[in-house]
């Protein structure tokens, strides 16, 4: 049976007021078997969620275990004598304060990229101009090109521009992405053109229209992109690793990856560093989770 056949009974509804069709079960009167299934599904999902979250719990609890407990066998989830000495050590002996500042600087620079991408998305969504189609096609193409393919030539280009060992150089390769421009364009196509026209007739400049009308109307997509940009900037690993030779330019992820050499010696210190990197992201995500999910729905992925 095809889907169009299935629609038939609903289409007949208004014509048959005397014999109402069987009602869809309402919330309060869900058949017992369906409710049992939902409970079973809920339990299965809870178990799956617990397994998924296990490494996070293990990480957080291990970060406050004294060294003797972190290498004890058999391992225990909860620390018996919790200590914060490894967090202190990260900041006092290992310069993680500087890494945090560098990482925040990368995040801030990438927010500028966000504004550029919003402008481009608006340009593609609301203007017709020569070369629009091929240029937008170019945007889509870049989504397909993996960073590992461009890694070496991009390094050579940045080296030629004397931008290795600078925060700007680290942020540049990922400053704009085809995917974000695509998301902005999808969303901004839905802004009514009449509003823009009315503003033009009132004599508003194009920049003013963008800043005062388009950006405020794009708040939902902007929220998503800010969250995603924050997460990407905070986690950025490959470019800082390649471009920063100077330890003073290391980001958190590079600092954390260096700790891997101590794998056998000090798991607690590693877990403290990992927690420092992961927990801020978890907080940001839990707060903005809903808008991130909506953003994917908005992007036209249906």
């Amino acid at each position, binding site marked *: *049976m095809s889907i169009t056949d*299935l*629609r038939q009974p*609903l289409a007949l509804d208004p014509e048959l007021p005397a014999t109402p069709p069987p009602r*869809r*079960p309402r919330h309060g009167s869900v058949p017992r078997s369906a409710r049992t299934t*939902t409970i079973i*599904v809920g339990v299965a999902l809870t178990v*799956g*969620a617990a397994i998924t*979250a296990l*490494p*996070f719990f*293990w*990480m957080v609890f291990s970060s406050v275990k004294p060294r003797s407990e*972190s290498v004890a*066998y*058999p*391992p225990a989830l909860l620390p018996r004598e919790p200590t914060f000495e490894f967090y202190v050590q990260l900041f006092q002996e290992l310069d993680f304060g500087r890494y945090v500042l560098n990482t925040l600087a990368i995040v801030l620079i990438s927010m500028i990229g966000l504004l550029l*991408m919003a*402008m*481009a998305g*608006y*340009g593609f969504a609301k*203007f*017709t101009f020569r070369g629009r189609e091929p240029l937008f096609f*170019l945007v889509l193409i*870049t989504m*397909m*090109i*993996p960073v*590992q*393919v*461009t890694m*070496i*030539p991009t*390094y*050579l*280009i940045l080296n030629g521009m004397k931008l290795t060992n600078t925060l700007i150089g680290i942020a540049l*390769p990922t*400053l*704009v992405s*085809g995917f974000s421009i695509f998301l902005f364009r999808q969303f901004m196509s839905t802004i009514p053109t009449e509003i823009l026209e009315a503003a033009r007739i009132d004599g508003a400049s194009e920049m003013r229209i963008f800043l005062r009308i388009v950006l405020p109307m794009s708040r939902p997509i902007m929220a998503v992109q800010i969250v995603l940009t924050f*997460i990407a900037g905070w*986690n950025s*690993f490959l470019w800082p690793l390649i471009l920063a030779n100077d330890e003073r330019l290391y980001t958190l*992820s590079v600092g*954390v*990856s260096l700790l891997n050499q101590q794998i056998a010696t000090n*798991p607690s210190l590693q*877990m403290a560093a990992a927690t420092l*990197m992961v927990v801020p*992201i978890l907080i940001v*995500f839990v707060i903005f*989770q809903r808008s*991130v*999910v909506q953003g*994917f729905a908005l992007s036209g*992925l*249906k």
Partner: protein
Amino acid sequence: MRTRSAPYLLIAPAMLLLIAFGVLPIMVAVVVSLTDMNLAGLGDWSRIEFIGVANYTQLFADPAFWQALWNTGIFAILGVPAVVVLSLIVALLLNRSQNRFFRALRSFYFLPAITAIVAISLVWGYLYNTQFGLFNYLLSLIGIPPVQWLSDPVMVKFSLVLVAVWRGTGLNIIIFLAALQSVPKEYLEAASLDGAGSMRTTVSVVIPLLRFAIFFVTITTIIAWLQFFDEPFVLTKGGPLGASTSVSLFLYQTGFSSSQFGYAAAGSVVLFVIIAVVTVIQLRGRKADVDY
């Protein structure tokens, strides 16, 4: 800013950056791959020589490159179906109810996707540890002898895939959930009027409607696995004896550890061609599919 020039001024900054770091590098890679550029050539361009396709002939005779290609293939074969099937199942289950509890559960499944892979790899390395790791302890409870998670050449592939699958499902679950929201309610109501159970509805109505999302997730997942890098970089450095070296890691090692830029650029071009071919084949297959 006049209206006529406005669109160009709006798109110019982003487009210039996109071209400089998205398109130009491909051309640079092709040119550099035909030279013997190395650390000496990086400082002084006059020391770079054009050597034709020598890098490519050397590359295809290099057992380390073939091993990296082979490993990447195995990673993709193990990882892609696991990620797609697992995230589809979890998304369908999560979509069963819209109540608070189910919504709260979603976050748990998304979290691995957004956390820093470097930090996460350390955590998994700790769990995999053969002396005091949790996994071997759990296995010992059910009488299984300790497993060499990261030092056995066969096991290491499964261990890395497990980390990447754990991490890779979250984003795809979001995409599937977004797609599920757009399934028209009338179809589901109609199916339930016809007496179809939830299993039947899912298989006959919902999954066919998700065709585009499944296609999208599959294609992006394959591309992601061809780029597999962070997990082997942090957890194994490609070892033991290259058993977990992916193509991307091979490129990184030849390019940045031994500074053979020309040689690594040739590898980049080969990886690019592979990804382009896979993408085109899939798009072809998609065209043959019915429209949605």
